[in-house]
């Protein structure tokens, strides 16, 4: 598995897209910090970008890589190697290289602008941790989709649809149900509803640490009680881990039966 991981990783590292992605984040970091020198404020702006863009890039990269390397994968499958090792190697290779682009791309400008001397270091690292989770989650989800769909175009379509659903449509449905059931106590509901969407969960996690915890009022109290404590933080991290593990388990399950 390590060998395949290494191969996928180097393959991606050599490819142009990893560099583009890395340079994009690097540029973004520098521009943000150039426009306002305040590291704290830049972290808030960055959050908006990370929770939208990281899942999208993860999804597209995952699907793209699967379909592009399909022939090579089939060649590998002919060898006496465990199937799950091949795919897990590829999966980890993509996730790790994407995460590296994210962490280095954003880390370098922020460190240069004095992150270590600023109070934002904890928030910034939380942002990176959440970004990493989102990478792992969405690459796993897109791999699942790609494995289940033979047709390349359909696979792409489904993957983008999944991203669109989790990033936009889900919140829309959430909002509508909040407005519709206004008369009922909604705090527990909204707490549970955020759990079922990794993007929402990451957003709330960062928001509560950043600026608006007090703004949330009564609902906020419930949320703060849950996420604000170390236990809540641990629990939500655990849920994010589940969000990584469940697609991986399904992937392995699918692999065993799939006829290539």
């Amino acid at each position, binding site marked *: 598995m390590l060998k395949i991981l290494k191969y996928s990783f180097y393959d991606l590292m050599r490819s142009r897209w990893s560099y583009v992605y890395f340079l994009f984040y690097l540029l973004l970091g520098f521009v943000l910090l150039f426009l306002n020198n305040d590291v704290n404020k830049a972290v808030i702006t960055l959050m908006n970008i990370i929770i939208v863009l990281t899942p999208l890039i993860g999804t597209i990269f995952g699907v793209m890589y699967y379909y592009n390397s399909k022939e090579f994968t089939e060649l590998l499958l002919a060898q006496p190697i465990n199937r799950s090792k091949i795919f897990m190697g590829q999966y980890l290779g993509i996730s790790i290289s994407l995460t590296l682009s994210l962490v280095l791309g954003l880390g370098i400008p922020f460190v240069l602008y004095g992150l270590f001397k600023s109070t934002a270091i904890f928030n910034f690292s939380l942002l990176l941790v959440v970004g990493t989770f989102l990478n792992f989650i969405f690459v796993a989800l897109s791999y699942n989709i790609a494995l289940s769909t033979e047709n390349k175009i359909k696979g792409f379509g489904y993957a983008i649809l999944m991203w669109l659903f989790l*990033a936009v449509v*889900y*919140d829309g449905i959430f*909002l509508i149900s909040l407005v519709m059931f206004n008369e009922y106590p909604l705090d527990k509901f909204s707490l549970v509803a955020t759990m079922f969407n990794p993007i929402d969960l990451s957003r709330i996690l960062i928001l509560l640490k950043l600026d608006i915890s007090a703004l*949330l009022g009564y609902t906020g109290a419930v949320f703060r009680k849950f996420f604000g404590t170390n236990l809540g933080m641990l629990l939500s991290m655990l849920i994010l881990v589940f969000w990584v593990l469940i697609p991986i388990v399904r992937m392995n399950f699918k692999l065993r039966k799939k006829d290539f």
Partner: protein
Amino acid sequence: MKNNSLLFFLFFISFVQAKQIEVCESCSIKSIREALEIAENGDEVLIKTGLYKEHGLIVNKSVVLKGEKGAVIDGEEVGEIFTIEADNFTIRNLKIINVGSSYTVDYSAIKVVKAHDFIIEDCTFESVFFGILIEKSENGIIRNNKISSNRKSEASSGNGIHIWDGDNMEVYNNQLSGLRDGIYFEFVKNSIVYNNLSTNNLRYGLHFMFSNKNEYHHNEFRNNGAGVAVMFSKFISMHHNKFRLNWGSASYGLLLKEIYDAEIYNNLFEENTIGVNGEGCTRINYKNNTFLRNGWAIKIAGACYTNIFTNNDFMYNSLDLAYNSKVNDNKFENNYWSEYTGYDLDKNGIGDIPYRPVKLFSYIVNKTPEALVLLRSLFVDIINFSEKVSPVFTPDDLMDENPKMKRINDSI
């Protein structure tokens, strides 16, 4: 009045030689109580260094009560320390600690009843219930005092400087912390509060009730339950104050309730949950204020008429404005909005298209507070954008016709 007191003073100097009474452990007079008994109008009582465990002291003569450095009066948490029922007195440089608490009686370090022309200055009050409590008095000066306490709940705490029924009072350069209300005015008129620092109070930094024609300026209110609450008052002028970090699920920088004819200018509202919360406010002019990084810059509830906002800076607030009723005749003109995305083709410093401060999302949040969970979600950005392009839900008459392109109040 000043002339009167001067004459009074001269009268004493010429006829009765004012004497100084010293209180200390080795003096002939060992307690403050004794000193106050033998003192006559115009005398000076000097409390020398030492610890005095006394309470329930009554001052009914016009004396100067002065403490030496290191003189501490300890009330042992029993009850009131000084009750003053005299005019023309001065209290200077005393340190009073441990005033008793009660749920039925307002015990205080210094209680002033029906007095005029007095000064309380340079005193330190620690772990008090009420600090300075003034009733039915006028022409008082309260300055350079430090009042602090460490109360846990609103019910078991008192106010720092509490004035009930006063006229022409001056409160300045005081520091107040850990109390219920830093400064509380009820039925006080023609008074002025300035240069005070009010922090970490359980309820309000400064609180006005039924107090007309007052002014407060150059104060700083930080980390209080709410910065300042002005209620049921008319003709209040508030300027050059800083309302900062009043952050919590029910916190305000400035809470206005049933206020008429107020002037609010050159203030800074920074990182409050709600910068200004107004209910039933009429004829209020907001000018040159800066709203920086608040949750809501301004939240306006019902029955507000003729509030005019001009030349204010609204910068990086999560939500600029929340309205839950009709706009009435409130007006926004020439403000700077950091979220304004318009253009200025004729380069006159004023944006060519109007700015709408109420976004669709803040409209929804007003109806369904739980929806705030979705703040900064992509979906919310999308609906806000589409609403901006073609307003459907948000009131179309609520807008700033001439938004400024650059910050107005750079100095703050």
